[in-house]
């Protein structure tokens, strides 16, 4: 069983060493620019000159390509085909097949749209590959995010694999008792309750004890929290964050004035 769920890959790299908030700003910055920029080729250029170099710099190119093939390209490909075929944009008709008559405009539109989705998902993926969830939450907590949020995020990451393992056990157990998970729709729908019931009730009864356990360790203490690990935040980090904010504002302005 996986003990926790996350994309994170431990490496020694310039990207890994960045402050988590800088990386988050970077990821969001790339997304904003790709969606807000008035220029057609911005998202494509971002992939070449931001996403790929970042994955190289962070030494996660292989993992990134892997995620690209498994998660990003199928979605983007589906989007591209659907939109190229079905977006009813007026323009130069490329071909006609039955009721389909894609135009040059709809293909261009679909291409830009799909690329933007690729940029968005890629930049989040690289952020997740290079940022340990614990570091991110520690840093955000230090900056004023209530400690309860860190608790929720991290404990969810640890509960999900347990829950999935439990779900698999229950599915296997119910199947061996003849529960139907394969045949007709109504039989499968009827199978839902015996599968969901034990899973849900089992985890809900534990809630109270777990609440007591964390209360006993000062979870609701009104004192100012401290943290075990210190997360470095250098001048370089601050520079990166401020320049990204400037870039986002400039892009927004150009969007408003140029379109």
């Amino acid at each position: 069983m996986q003990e926790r769920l996350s994309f994170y890959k431990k490496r020694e790299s310039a990207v890994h060493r960045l402050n988590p908030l800088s990386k988050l700003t970077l990821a969001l910055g790339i997304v904003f620019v790709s969606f807000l920029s008035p220029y057609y080729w911005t998202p494509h250029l971002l992939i070449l000159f931001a996403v790929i170099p970042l994955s190289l710099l962070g030494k996660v190119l292989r993992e990134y390509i892997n995620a690209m093939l498994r998660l990003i390209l199928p979605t983007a490909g589906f989007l591209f085909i659907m939109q190229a075929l079905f977006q009813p944009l007026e323009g130069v008709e490329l071909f006609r097949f039955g009721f389909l008559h894609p135009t040059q405009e709809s293909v261009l539109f679909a291409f830009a749209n799909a690329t933007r989705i690729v940029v968005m998902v890629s930049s989040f993926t690289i952020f997740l590959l290079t940022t340990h969830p614990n570091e991110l939450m520690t840093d955000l907590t230090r900056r004023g995010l209530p400690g309860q949020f860190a608790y929720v995020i991290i404990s969810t990451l640890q509960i999900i694999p347990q829950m999935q393992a439990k779900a698999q056990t229950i599915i296997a157990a119910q199947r061996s008792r003849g529960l139907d998970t394969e045949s007709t729709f109504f039989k499968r729908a009827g199978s839902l309750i015996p599968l969901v019931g034990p899973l849900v009730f089992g985890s809900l009864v534990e809630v109270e004890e777990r609440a007591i356990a964390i209360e006993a360790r000062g979870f609701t203490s009104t004192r100012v929290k401290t943290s075990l690990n210190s997360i470095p935040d250098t001048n370089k980090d601050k520079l990166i964050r401020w320049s990204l904010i400037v870039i986002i504002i400039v892009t927004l302005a150009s969007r408003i004035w140029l379109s």
Partner: protein
Amino acid sequence: MSIISENAVYFIIAVAIIVILLVWSYVTGRMRKDFSTTTWVLIPVAIAINIAIGQIVVTLKLPVFLDSIGTVLVAVVAGPWAGALTGTLSNIIWGATIDPNAFPWFPVAFFIGLVSGLMANAGWFKNWWKVAVTGFVVALASAIVSTPIAVYLYGGITASGSSFITAYLLQTGQGVVQAVLSTGFLVEPVDKITTAMLAFAIIQGLSKRFVARLPRPENAEVEGGASQTQLFIAIGVVILLVLFAAFMLGNILGG
């Protein structure tokens, strides 16, 4: 440009309403009561329930998502804000661990939690047919909120299977907003009414003592009446709601 600015007005109004609600529940101290330690422990469990059930549903190849049962559960027993937070974090964590494509849809999950919590506060989670209505209202909210995301981020056609309906509507000459919204109204009610009913069933199965120690036990109290009759009323209500949805759909497409 004029359409965009008109939509921007709607957006600002929606955000303003949320902020007012938020400030109000903060000032009245209700928020602090809702976010008890038990609530903070319940939220990760609810998120895990969302994801685990979402995956079981995939295993069973059912034509619904059912990935917000935990969100509705928290919204009912711990209030709209706890529900909204559960929904939002569910999507963020789904995005961060399983599929980054889930990220942009977090506002939808936020509203599923918020709306089901508000409905429950108003007493619309106390028997089968009221729960069905709640599910329907949640479905409307979900369809409305997902429309701008689908239109602005994905150009209308998203990566989900229901996009074939949108694509068909686009081909028949509908505008992109109408096509996406109609798809949402067609697809969402079945999913969200089932979700609400399952959440109701789960809450009914919990021990009274457990529910009593949660922040809003009064939302989960069952109103009298034989459950059999209730169920029939519920089915009747669902049929009415579907007819209503069909009527609305006709209007949107006609207009």
